[in-house]
């Protein structure tokens, strides 16, 4: 099943996430919420859990697929690590069901604001940074497709 984002703009969703995470003062609570979000994420179609859709990370495996529905991109993704899966769920909340232009013009500011930017660092190599890049690459590729058909 594909996961659709909300009807909010990307930045509205980011603000909502930042607000939600502001209530957690302890790391443990933050991670508990992230893990919960990962558990709520719909499972990716098993046919996409192959090397073709896999992003390489040293620490955990991440699979991602994207589809165009109308002028909006729907993302689905999965990871074998629960925390990474939760982080992915956040990215999907923010970016799924938006147009390529919206995605490309909205940097993931919530990542730093909720203090999970350490997961993007080079040393983590967890595929989250690769996933963000992949989301932007899908957006750029679908934008080209849309522009061609205009």
């Amino acid at each position, binding site marked *: 099943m594909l996961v659709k984002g909300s009807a909010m703009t990307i930045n509205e969703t980011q603000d909502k996430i930042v607000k939600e995470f502001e209530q957690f003062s302890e*790391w*443990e609570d933050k*991670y*508990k919420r992230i*893990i919960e979000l990962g558990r709520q994420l719909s499972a990716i179609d098993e046919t996409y859990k192959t090397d073709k859709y896999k992003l390489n990370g*040293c*620490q*955990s*495996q991440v699979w991602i697929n994207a589809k165009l529905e109308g002028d909006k991109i729907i993302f689905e993704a999965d990871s*074998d*690590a*629960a*925390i*990474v899966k939760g982080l992915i769920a956040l990215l999907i909340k923010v970016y799924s069901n938006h147009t390529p232009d919206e995605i490309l013009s909205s940097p993931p500011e919530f990542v730093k604001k909720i203090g999970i930017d350490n*997961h993007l660092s080079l040393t983590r190599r*967890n595929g989250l940074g690769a996933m963000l890049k992949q989301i932007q690459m899908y957006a750029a590729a679908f934008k080209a497709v849309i522009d061609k058909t205009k």
Partner: protein
Amino acid sequence: MITTIPEVKRKFDVEEIRNDFPILKRFVNGKQLVYLDNAATSQKPQAVIDALTQYYTFDNANIHRGLYFLSELATDQFETSRLKVKEFINALSASEIIFVRGTTEAINLVASSLCRAKHFKDGDEVIISSMEHHANIVPWQLMNDRKKIALKVIPITDEGELDLDAYEKLINEKTKLVSVVHISNALGTVNPVKKIIETAHARGVPVLLDGAQAIPHFKVDVQELDADFYAFSGHKAFGPTGIGVLYGKTEYLEMMPPYQGGGDMIRTVTFEKTTFDDLPRKFEAGTPNIAGGIGLGAAINYMNQFDRNDLAAHENYLLRYATEKLSQIEGLRIIGTAKEKASVISFVIEGIHPYDIGTIIDTDGIAIRTGHHCAQPIMQRYNLPATARASFAFYNTKEEIDKLVLGIHKVKKMFA
């Protein structure tokens, strides 16, 4: 009358020793650091930090070049470190000690220079094991554009021990080198390298040992082992990063051409032809890591204060204690249960990814390694994408292992 004064060694007291390592006092995420990633790199005693500061503050000059006071001082300190390394691993001569960046560069040097010495021809074989670090796999594959070298791999048992019968069968007339790890970074297995060398030598095959994990744990005697090459890194043995050692028997180092060309390794240079300097300088092109070499000397001095058997005994105690405590955790499985093990414990927990374990216990200031440990083939052998790994040095304590165990219980609760 000549009398030998018996050497008085410093008494081993873990609490006292911890004071020598300033980083162990720091806090991470509001908690006192529990550093259990010693197989990745070790922490540095104040004596090593002081040696680096002293060098850069008062003694910095290039070596082997100037005839002025500071250059001679720096040269003398750097070459004294080479002598210390020679004694530390009991090499026959200091000229058999090549300073390199680390184990990785040492193995690349041997691969490249043996290749250029025409030691290999197409179709020749190098025997490695299935528990090698990528640093002892990739350099041989990189030689493929020069010579087609086939890698033959010694299999391991489920416990993580080398299958020595299979090893003997792998040796044939095409075998030109055996290159194996002394202690596995991913499993902790201490390999029977003396026997491996005897078997290879009986067939006239030289042996390289990757000693990166062994040097910090116990005394290594290259002559007693009769190793032809021995490689290790300074930073895993309480010294600085960016300095390591390649030991090679003179007969091999003499027949091998230089690895890199440049300053400090030549005798005469014209545009037509260059002749090279003697060992070890033939292999040390350019300005070396002078501070690193001096720092490594300080690290060796630090280790030599103690009877190294005392340090090893404490590490063995930590290994046994941690093995016992971790084994009691439901769903936790230790990967690598060889009879001879160093203080390295790789483990997985049913239903919880190592990434999640590492991330959660980091919030309590506990540092362990998670991932494939740069040894993907061994992960494939156990059909695991990754493991969590705790590795102990002599400055670790029983209390720190208790904290690790508590941390794992917390992780399990979160994922229950």
